[in-house]
């Protein structure tokens, strides 16, 4: 897929060719890197080495291996979190976050809570026509679920999360932080067990220690809510990710999701 972007370069090159940091002072893997590249984390190794006129890309992530040769004059690569809906197969554009404990909200109340979401990481190569994704991987276990019944429901990527009142500490290679603003516009108390989001609206931001998104959930009735994303970072110094779904979005694509099959 070819992704055109008008966004500025996300980060300055943060590693030098062939340089590898010690585990105690390891910088984030996110951002723009010069080639050749060598990254090693607990269950993740990425290397891009020159072999003649080509680059040789190797990645191993929790037992999953990907190797390819890259024919490009480019000598940089961009690594950033992408919408967590591509692995093991891209079969849905919806993400369901199921809450570990139910959340009850009074009518007329608006509150901010924090939940986590799974991380998938994209490796992009710049080209004359934009950015090309060359690999996507994840360190997280993958699971799918059905929202609704088999006839009218939709398949969703599945994730469970606790509900936090402040930003939880997370490993940015595995989990992101989603700030969810829940508002109950109805006349009744509502009990929430989950939130379903549409990938076409996701806006991911990253820094060295966190990957984040901001979303809203407007409760429209006892069994209906609308979810949407906000295009702003959780903290000031965060960088906007290159998203995959946003680039595919048509003018008619609706980024919001109406949860009408139960909360």
């Amino acid at each position: 897929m070819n992704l055109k972007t008008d966004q500025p370069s996300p980060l300055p090159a943060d590693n030098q060719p062939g340089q590898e940091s010690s585990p105690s002072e390891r910088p984030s893997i996110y951002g723009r890197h010069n080639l050749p590249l060598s990254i090693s984390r607990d269950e993740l190794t990425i290397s891009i080495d020159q072999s003649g006129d080509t680059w040789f890309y190797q990645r191993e992530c929790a037992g999953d291996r990907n190797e390819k040769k890259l024919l490009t004059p480019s000598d940089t690569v961009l690594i950033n979190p992408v919408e967590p809906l591509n692995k093991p197969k891209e079969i849905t554009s919806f993400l369901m976050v199921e809450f570990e404990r139910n959340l009850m909200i009074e009518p007329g109340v608006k509150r901010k809570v924090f939940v986590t979401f799974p991380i998938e990481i994209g490796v992009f190569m710049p080209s004359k026509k934009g950015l090309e994704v060359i690999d996507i991987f994840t360190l997280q276990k993958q699971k799918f679920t059905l929202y609704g019944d088999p006839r009218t429901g939709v398949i969703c990527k599945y994730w469970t999360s606790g509900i936090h009142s402040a930003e939880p500490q997370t490993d940015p290679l595995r989990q992101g932080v989603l700030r969810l603003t829940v508002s109950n516009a109805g006349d009744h108390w509502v009990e929430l067990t989950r939130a379903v989001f549409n990938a076409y609206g996701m806006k991911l931001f990253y820094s060295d220690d966190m990957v984040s998104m901001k979303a809203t959930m407007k409760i429209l009735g006892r069994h209906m809510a609308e979810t949407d994303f906000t295009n702003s970072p959780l903290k000031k110094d965060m960088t906007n990710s290159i998203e995959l779904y946003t680039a595919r979005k048509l003018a008619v694509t609706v980024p919001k999701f109406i949860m009408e099959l139960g909360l």
Partner: protein
Amino acid sequence: MNFNKVIYGDVTTLDLLAVILIFLVAVILSKGFSIYLRRALKEKVSKDRLQIISKTVYYGILGVAVIASFPLLGINPSGLLVAGGIVGIIIGFASQSIVGNLISGVFLMMERPIKIGNSVRIGEYSGMVEDIRIISTSLRTWDGLYVRIPNEKVFTDSITNYVAHAARRFSYVVGIRYSDDADKAISIIKNLIEDQPLALTNPPPQIFVDSLGDNAVNIIVRTWAPAREWYTLRMELLWKIKKALELEGIEIAFPQRTVWFASEIHTKEIGDTQN
């Protein structure tokens, strides 16, 4: 060459050349535009919708070219409507099956029980829908064969669309020995399904002792999977269950019979007999 030579009525050679030119331009434009649309929307629109959009554009441009060429050919469009109606009735009577297929095709496109790319069974044929045309529907069978089915047959036959719903269920019967722990076997299978990304969390899988058979304790395993991916999971899961059970010392039972003899039977080992 005299371009003003009258061929019939007011139609001259120049008019005919203009009509040919219009058609040529229309064909080039419609093909080019439909190819451009296919490329531009390939990753943004589903395959069946893309086919409909590109076909609509293709035939739309050709239709406009046909209408635009009527005055050049000395045809009055309003008169054509009446003539077309009469001709339509005549053609309808003369070729009932074609008209039947055509009408069925229109209803199929309206009702949309199948879409391009769906895995379906139509009558005796199973496969993937390759194209839905106005007269016929084509399938690619699982063996890779091309099958063209007239729309009238598609419309009147029973249609099973394997991917019409988001999810579907499949099941296995796993027979274990009576001497094995069925609770342990159920727990192993549950954990195994939990580790499969394509096995849906909801609706939850069902694993229970279904029957006490002649030769085995039969455990039924029912799992839901995304309708488009169920076969991938079905192919992988059963062998994984067998291997996981055997790793824990639980074996798949095979038919056996215990025979009781009324009187005592004297047996000798084969080795003794040979000696």
